[in-house]
């Protein structure tokens, strides 16, 4: 059994409610291969089959559920793969894992930042070539997480409204180093967006430290709903298409304040 294929199947099965047909589609392998691997993984106690119910007539699907031992194997395999990939590219755990690490949990699956496109199933690979993301990373969980400041600076400029709102929360984190935030913000070209997010989140230390740049920055691809408070802050920080304040407030309500 090829361990990379086994890890791919295990990882997919652990991050969704998938049946054999779904796994065939997701892996791009032949049905025979997937069935053979599933049998082997089941024999090793890493996967168990579970019949799903059905509404209406027809044969119900059988879902492949990863056992606790299977999840342990996935985590171990991910760390192993991280070490392997680390030899050929600059990498760090991806945005979802990193946000969770720094305190903002999304529901999703393992991802990876890499400075070049990588074929690295089971990871969702986010290509970020800026070395500022990888410098000063924190070693943990068999890999490395981008520093708090690098993650916030990246997310502020990511164009993803949820990541930007999560970055606003990180700006209130007690471990945030304002001087390093300014430096990373400058390297990502997201100083104004960070300043805007800091204002929305009430992160005064970060807001004070960030120097407003003359060049306008764009936060989202589309203009959002008119929001006087966010629009005022956006105008002050020279940010186009800002995220609405409500997004940041929701995040704060859910994840709380630092400390």
């Amino acid at each position, binding site marked *: 059994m090829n361990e990379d294929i086994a890890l791919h199947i295990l990882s997919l099965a652990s991050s*969704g409610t998938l049946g054999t047909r779904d796994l065939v589609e997701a892996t791009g392998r032949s049905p025979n291969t997937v069935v053979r691997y599933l049998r082997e993984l089941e024999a090793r106690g890493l996967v168990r089959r579970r019949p799903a119910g*059905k509404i209406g007539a027809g044969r119900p699907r059988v879902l492949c559920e990863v056992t606790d031992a299977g999840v342990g194997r996935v985590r171990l395999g991910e760390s192993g793969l991280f070490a392997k990939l680390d030899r050929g590219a600059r990498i760090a755990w991806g945005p979802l894992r990193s946000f969770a690490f720094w*305190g903002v949990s999304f529901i999703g699956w393992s991802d990876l930042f890499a400075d070049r496109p990588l074929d690295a199933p089971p990871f969702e690979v986010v290509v970020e070539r800026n070395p500022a993301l990888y410098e000063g990373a924190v070693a943990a969980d068999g890999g490395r*997480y981008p520093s708090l400041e690098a993650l916030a600076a990246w997310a502020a400029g990511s164009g993803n409204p949820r990541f930007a709102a999560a970055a606003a929360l990180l700006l209130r984190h007690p471990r945030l180093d304002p001087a390093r935030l300014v430096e990373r913000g400058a390297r990502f070209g997201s100083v104004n967006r960070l300043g805007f997010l800091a204002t929305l989140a009430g992160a005064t230390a970060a807001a004070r430290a960030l120097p407003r740049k003359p060049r306008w920055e764009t936060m989202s691809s*589309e203009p959002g709903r008119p929001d006087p408070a966010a629009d005022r802050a956006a105008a002050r920080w020279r940010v186009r298409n800002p995220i609405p304040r409500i997004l940041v407030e929701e995040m704060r309500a859910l*994840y709380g304040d630092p400390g």
Partner: protein
Amino acid sequence: MATPGDRALLTVRELGSWLDRDVGPALREETEAVAHGGTALTMLRLKASTKDVDFGFRAGEDFERFVAALKATGYRVTRDFRPNPRETYLRLERRGPLVSAVDLRFPTWNNWRLTELVLRRARVIPYGQVRVVVPDRDALFLFKTYPLRETDLDDLRAILRVSPPDQARVIALFDEQDAIHRSELLAETIHEPLLNILELRVRFAASLRLLGPSYRRRIPRIARRARIRFGELQLRPSLTDLIRRLRTTEGVMTWEDVMAESGDRLRERLTKGETRTRARSGTTSTRSKRRPGRPPRGD
């Protein structure tokens, strides 16, 4: 906020554990919840992540039991309103490391009805006392052609990249929903079915327009059907204008203005089409007639 290492990435597996070990024991009996939005897409691995958990309900008792169970496990209601006259929307939140926000809607979700056709290909997964119904990719794709938010459009694009929908099925599902609303034009209802038809058709067409040409080309049949259904309405405002209005009013659209601009002919036309359809076949087929040679207005 947690310190590094306190929290791990939540996967669908943790979501299952939460239902099984946290919510399930607080339920008196088996309860059905239909996964919606980002939750369902993440469960089918069509979307990388979701922040909150979305469930819809087909039965009032299930909805009430689920709300009571969440309250019993420390969640509190932070939003309670009606997105439309028929639909109840509740958001419950609990500060904590696992599931922080849960959105619940009953009996519809953004106006979509959970019919047998919609749920025919759904998978039903038991987590303790909770029976989670996960609709199939095609139903989820259709359901996402409603809110017009950038995040929802991104979800549609993600589905098209990962696993493009079955166009015939999406069209059949849309036509079924449209037919349900049109059949209500002739019935005694407390709500205005015409508004639902407008919402449904305009949002469907708007979503397809906003997807952009490269994504639209991957689903030409769906795009064409959306265009035709919108054209049949013969509205005075253009689709571009309606998209602008819908997106700036964040869903609180005053359709009465649009209807006033388009006159009562719209109702008459849709009702007539429905009457004709019923008389012809006794079914609720949605095919309505457009006068030949007359291009649809408003786009």
